[in-house]
């Protein structure tokens, strides 16, 4: 039987210059999957490409030849010259290691930001492409579906995805704890630094529709306003703009605080104590820390946000250990299924099942026919044994013949389903049509239709 191999590079293995090229290749319309018919040694292929990672998952008969072909494909796709030493940036996982790595990727344990949710969607896209190009068959099909259900299990059984680990994300989470839904909230951006832009982008992604920009240089303010469909106000009147907003994001280069205790206190009264959330990502700080003492005003500076993140990181690490355990467990289950795809265990399982049925039926019959002599019993035993042997003869010869070919996993899997050979270990990877996976498949089919 062939090998499952995962070859690729990610943010850990490749330096940023190489990854930049990945990002460019990521956007190219050409999908390397269409090259599969030209690859002699590669049987099935899935291609995953994100800005931080490019991975080929494939099965092949001959490990070395298949891998060489894929490396060449990668080089062409990313656009690296033949002289660039590729091997040092690559990792190659074989068989169970490949399965385990894929499960880790799917459950976001291998991501730059641990637990970030996008990767699963990207993997699903990759699978959809592979289905469209018809490059997945028995093994990768099962493996990918399993990967989706592992990711789902990790997400429901651990809280790896629920802790914010970036400054902007932490700010959004805090805002949610204060304001609930953010859709109807107003954000004021004071200064137009990069960090501010990043955080504003996060708020916009959370549904904030009303933004106002106040910046010293009007050009930059207009530029930012265009991006976030925001209004602009003159920089000097940001204190009055504060009256009507809920969240203030500040990142000016001022050396002294630009918002003082009295500025806010007097305005809070006019705001009828509506909560006001200051996010101060400037260094040195823009907002006097004393402002935090005012009722219904919350001030978070960059260190406070960093504190939130550190807390969450710790929590994520703990959750990641739990998740790793789930991944290991599922890898072993997948191994059981893989092993069952060999011809010998399949044939043994068919024989065992037939023999078990024969024994049970004989027992029932003998219990009802009490008058049988030992000779008669023996004759019935021989008769039934011969019947079973003759019925199974042709299927077994067929399976043995197929075992020499590349289509073996397909026939073994089919045979197992035909004879329902996995009924006893319902836990195994075979049990892929359970409710969890069923959901996944439904979702997937829906996305396909779209």
């Amino acid at each position, binding site marked *: 039987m062939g090998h499952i191999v995962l070859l690729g590079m990610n943010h850990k293995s490749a330096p940023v210059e190489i990854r930049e090229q990945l990002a460019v290749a990521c956007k190219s319309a050409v999908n390397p999957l269409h090259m599969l018919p030209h690859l002699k040694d590669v049987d099935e292929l899935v291609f995953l490409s994100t800005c931080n990672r490019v991975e080929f998952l494939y099965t092949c008969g001959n490990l070395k030849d298949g891998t060489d072909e894929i490396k060449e494909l990668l080089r062409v796709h990313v656009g690296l010259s033949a002289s660039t030493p590729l091997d040092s940036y690559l990792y190659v996982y074989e068989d169970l290691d490949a399965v385990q790595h894929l499960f880790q990727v799917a459950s976001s344990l291998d991501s730059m930001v641990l637990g970030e949710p996008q990767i699963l969607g990207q993997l699903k896209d990759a699978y959809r492409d592979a289905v469209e190009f018809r490059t997945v068959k028995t093994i990768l099909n099962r493996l990918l579906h399993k990967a989706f259900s592992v990711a789902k299990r990790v997400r429901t059984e651990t809280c790896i995805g629920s802790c914010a680990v970036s400054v902007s994300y932490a700010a959004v989470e805090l805002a949610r704890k204060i304001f*609930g839904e953010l859709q109807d909230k107003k954000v004021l951006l004071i200064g137009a630094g990069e960090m501010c832009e990043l955080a504003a982008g996060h708020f916009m992604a959370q549904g904030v529709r009303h933004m106002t920009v106040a910046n010293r240089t009007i050009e930059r303010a207009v530029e930012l306003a265009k991006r976030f469909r925001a209004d602009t106000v003159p920089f000097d009147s940001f204190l009055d703009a504060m009256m009507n907003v809920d969240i203030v994001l500040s990142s000016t280069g001022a050396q002294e605080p630009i918002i003082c205790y009295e500025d806010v206190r007097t305005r809070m009264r006019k705001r009828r104590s*509506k909560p006001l959330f200051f996010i101060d990502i400037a260094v040195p700080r823009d907002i006097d820390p004393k402002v935090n003492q005012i*009722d219904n005003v919350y001030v978070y500076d960059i260190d406070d946000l960093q504190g939130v993140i550190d807390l969450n990181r710790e929590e994520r690490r703990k959750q990641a250990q739990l998740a790793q355990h789930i991944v290991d467990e599922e890898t072993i289950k997948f191994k059981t299924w893989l092993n069952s795809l060999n011809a010998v265990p399949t044939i043994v399982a068919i024989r065992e099942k037939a023999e078990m049925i024969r024994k049970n039926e004989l027992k029932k019959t003998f219990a009802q026919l009490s008058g049988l002599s030992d000779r008669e019993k023996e004759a019935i035993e021989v008769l039934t044994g011969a019947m079973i042997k003759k019925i199974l003869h042709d299927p077994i010869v067929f399976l043995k013949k197929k075992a020499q070919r590349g289509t073996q996993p397909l026939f073994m899997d089919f045979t197992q389903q035909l004879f329902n050979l996995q009924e006893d270990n319902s836990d195994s990877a075979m049990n892929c049509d359970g409710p969890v996976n069923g959901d996944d498949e439904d979702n997937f089919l829906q996305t396909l239709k779209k």
Partner: protein
Amino acid sequence: MEAVFFVVATLCYLIATVGYLVYLFRDQASIHVASWSIMLIGAVFHTGAIIFRSANLGQLALTTGQEALSLFAWVFVVTYLIVQSRLQLRILGSFVSPLAVIFMLSSEIMPTHIMPKSEFLKSGWVILHVGSLFLANALFALAFSLGIMYLLQERYIKHKSFGFLYPRLPSLKTLDSIAHHCLITGFPLMTAGLVTGFAYAALVWHSPWNWDPKEILSLATWVVYAVLVHERLAVGRGRRAAWLAVFGFTAILLTFLGANLILKGHHSISGKI
């Protein structure tokens, strides 16, 4: 029979409280559902106890401090069960169920001597008076719980030290707006309860105001809530409003305990009747 029902109800509330305390630490929907259901069963037994008692007395079971507090606990639990089923703010149960148990247990220490049977107490006016006041107070008790949750969550965010309840508690906005609804509904009910009280007093004693200690204290709590509602509507919501909700309900509890345990008047045992 009613005593058995009463004990079963108290036990149910107690078990539900334990369940809800476990729920604080383990976020599992099943724990919430179980606790809520046990509380519902408790409420059914409690209803039985009150009906038996009232049937025995031939009037609504309100003749002793014990009965009054038990009836109030019942109104409170039923209000909570309804609010919970409509809001799905599960964590609220962890803050409300202990209050129910406290009401049930403290009703045991209330005076039990029955006031002389009086035709005054059989009037529909009394049911209106007591019903609207109890419902108002139950809503205020919910606002009290929500206020405590608000203050806790507010403290976490303000001091930037996130205790274990931080992820479990909902947003300040949610807590504030539910409390707001409780208060905005409760205050007219309280007003109506007081007005019917005065009207009935005018009817039977020919004077709406009799300088009964409970009358004075009730008016004082009404003023507290009037300030609170004004604060919310005119000045703004937030931390002060949450404090006032906590303070207001504490005042109600003092009124009730004070009037029933220490002071004498026509609302308690002897007095004018």
